[in-house]
């Protein structure tokens, strides 16, 4: 299944934004009525995306899976009823938890951004993409994994969640000017990464 999203028309599961929003609303309503199968529906809709983001923040599939489990647990315990976009809510929890883990486990847990982590991410990504496409698509986890945590956060919220600078500032508890400068620098990094991966082909 391709992760293609052109101009935000269709998302990674081939659904339009409208489709996904309707699905979210319906699923949340059913969940509120105690329909447990609705929970599985939410997992199916958003699991792959969350796992990809989580993988960019951790160094193993197992750790990424655990982080995603934490996020869905938090949703289960929360009273979220669709006040904002569900996926944005989920990815915000994800990033907050990743930041907590970073603060708590710094000496022990190698997170993406360290030399070894990046090398490992690159080699595992190479193993995963075994069928060479004509235009070899870059792995989102790999791409995000190469950014610093601060850059990664603003890129996720702006490019993938479509939040405004004000909304990003509120989500991350930073100044709007900081959002602006971080995004600009993140884009410089992304362009460098793209150039480098282009040179490797």
């Amino acid at each position: 299944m391709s992760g293609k999203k052109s101009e935000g028309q269709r998302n990674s599961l081939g659904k339009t934004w409208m489709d996904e929003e309707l699905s979210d609303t319906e699923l949340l309503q059913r969940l509120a009525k105690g329909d447990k199968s609705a929970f599985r529906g939410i997992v199916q809709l958003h699991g792959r995306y969350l796992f990809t983001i989580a993988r960019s923040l951790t160094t193993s599939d197992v750790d990424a899976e655990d982080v995603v489990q934490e996020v869905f647990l938090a949703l289960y315990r929360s009273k979220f009823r669709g006040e904002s976009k569900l996926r944005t809510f989920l990815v915000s929890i994800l990033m907050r938890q990743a930041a907590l883990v970073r603060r708590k486990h710094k000496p022990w847990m190698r997170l993406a951004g360290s030399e070894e982590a990046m090398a490992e991410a690159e080699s595992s990504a190479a193993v995963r993409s075994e069928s060479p496409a004509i235009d070899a698509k870059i792995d989102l986890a790999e791409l995000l994994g190469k950014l610093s945590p601060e850059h990664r956060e603003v890129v996720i919220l702006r490019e993938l969640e479509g939040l405004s600078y004000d909304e990003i500032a509120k989500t991350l508890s930073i100044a709007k000017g900081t959002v602006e400068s971080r995004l600009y620098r993140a884009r410089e990094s992304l362009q460098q990464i793209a150039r480098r991966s282009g040179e490797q082909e």
Partner: protein
Amino acid sequence: MNCPSDQLLSAFHDGEASPEDAASVRAHLADCASCADVVEAMRKSSQLVQQAELLPVSEAMINRWSSVTRAVQDRSIRRLAASLTGIAASVLIAASLLKQPSAEISTPQLGEIEQWAFAGEDDSIDSSSSHIAAKWMAADLSMRSSREDQGGAQP
């Protein structure tokens, strides 16, 4: 307008420049190929992120993530195991040794479980909630063993 800063061009690309700045930038871009290139490069890096491949997930992973009520209980067990002291510990040990439903051990209400599990987030478990958790865990253990005896599947 002299060439605007790349940072302003980045804000412009996001539609976040002020109306005055945006108008100036638009006018400037009409005449400046170099700045137009910068904006185009930013558009490409946005596209790169938005079109990047997601990782595959297996049905097994979906199953694990979906089995949330089980996960709440399992995590509660693990957290409890790490923090049991005194009376709570002996209640638990007694229940696991007996391996049968005891009249004195009643399953706490669901709200109590959730309350305890949520309170566990910051790793501080006071003695009262520890008592509730011990009751629950003992009841759960006795339920599990009787289920195993009957050859029943786990929920």
